[in-house]
């Protein structure tokens, strides 16, 4: 990457199969434009995302990690996303408490019909991460 080239973050996005992945699909089939920063990973439910996945991605150098699932009340497995939400509260506190950057992890509810919201969330998150800059964990040796 040359100096004047703009920094394009790498954002890992865990998308739940039943809502958010379908939402991303809809954005695609509707030919909506969203940033190339997003690397989607399909999971069956947002609650499948072990906080360790997020930690690993962060230490591995991901500039941002997005977890997206069905809106509360709409989880395909009824209550998965309620657990996800509590784990997120916990994880953010852990990250904050260690003096790291909770801004690099994000939880969003995106339904299958919300192609637009998918675009909004990914665009906004990408912009935010661009401002934060590169994740400094990426080239640390003594991890």
């Amino acid at each position: 990457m040359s100096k004047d080239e703009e920094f394009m973050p790498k954002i890992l996005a865990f998308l739940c199969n039943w809502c958010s992945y379908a939402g991303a699909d809809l954005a695609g089939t509707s030919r909506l434009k969203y940033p190339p920063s997003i690397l989607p990973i399909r999971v069956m439910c947002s609650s499948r995302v072990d906080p360790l996945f997020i930690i690993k991605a962060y230490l591995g150098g991901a500039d941002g990690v997005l977890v997206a699932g069905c809106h509360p009340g709409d989880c395909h497995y009824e209550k998965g996303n309620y657990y996800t939400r509590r784990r997120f509260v916990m994880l953010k506190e852990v990250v904050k408490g260690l003096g790291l950057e909770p801004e690099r992890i994000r939880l969003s509810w995106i339904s299958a019909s919300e192609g637009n919201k998918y675009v909004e969330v990914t665009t906004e998150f990408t912009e935010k991460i661009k401002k934060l800059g590169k994740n400094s964990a990426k080239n640390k040796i003594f991890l």
Partner: protein
Amino acid sequence: MTKALKINKSTEQGILELLKFLLKKGKVKGIFTLKKINKDGSVAYSLITKPDELKYAVPFYPLMPVNAGKLLSRFSLKGSSSEPVAAVVRPCELRAFIELVKREQGSLENIFFISSTCGGVHPIDKSVDGTVEKNLSEYWDAVKKGEIPAELRPACRSCEEFIPYTADMTVDLIGNNIDKQCMIFLNTKNGEEIAKGMDGEFLEKEINKEKIDKLRGKREAEKKKLFDELEVKMNGMDGLIEIFGKCISCHGCMRVCPICYCKLCEFESSDSEYKPSNYESDLKKRGGLRVPPGTIYFQLGRLSHISISCVACGACDDVCPVDIPVAMIFKKVGESVQKMFDYIPGKDVEEDIPLVTFEKEEFAEVEE
């Protein structure tokens, strides 16, 4: 008002007499307490069934060789005790045990809990060279005055949870005239029941709030100081690397942690082992890699597992060979996580661990 038993003897004597009484009268069949191994001040938790053996018992000796919650879990993991046992434990040990029971790692059945207003304990290495034993009288003097004894572990110096929540009996040590009297609060029906018939004066009393608050204030101040010092060090990834860079990956902190109960720790499983391809891709990215990698992943991961239930007993600090302030880091992060859920680990066995339950309407702000 709480029921209390006052014995007109030194607390040290009084409590031993109570334990002897419990055994002799068959109210319990065993006593789980600290026992002296030699004259230098080495102690270990033991189960005692013969009243005579109690002469080596040293309940509330200012050391925590292992968090007793962990031991009681092993004692009751495969089923509850068939006979009643009295366990003399510290408040944080009792809380750890409750957290383990919530995880189905033990049973409360047939165990009476005797705890105390807790003066704290010394680092374990201070027992090996005999300093704890040598300074015992200074320790008890400070406890008597409601002060923080010298050379306590940081976790104890800064502990505000030094009164047990669920003990059947609480021996009052803080700010008490422990040379002359032994004051035991009987908090539960069980506590009252087993104390019945004991020589002493039964009365109604409250723990002296003023003295407790005064000590809590001192410990709060100590906590603030320790947290502030930590915060300066924990700034960003570089700060963390500075702190954990010297970790030798012995995993001692995990092994002695009462909450880390997994038989096979995730971070020791083959899943966490680096494959050649992992090394390759990491090396390409970073241009160098600590071997073995994963020190910070280990602690961040462990925090994600146990911060919700960390009772800040300080056991991890005791074992870290390179003096990483593991306990204070876990206490600091633990407290902030627990605060989010308004949760005090080990306070009430009926209360769900926050991460295995939910409310439908809550934490809307965490979604963006």
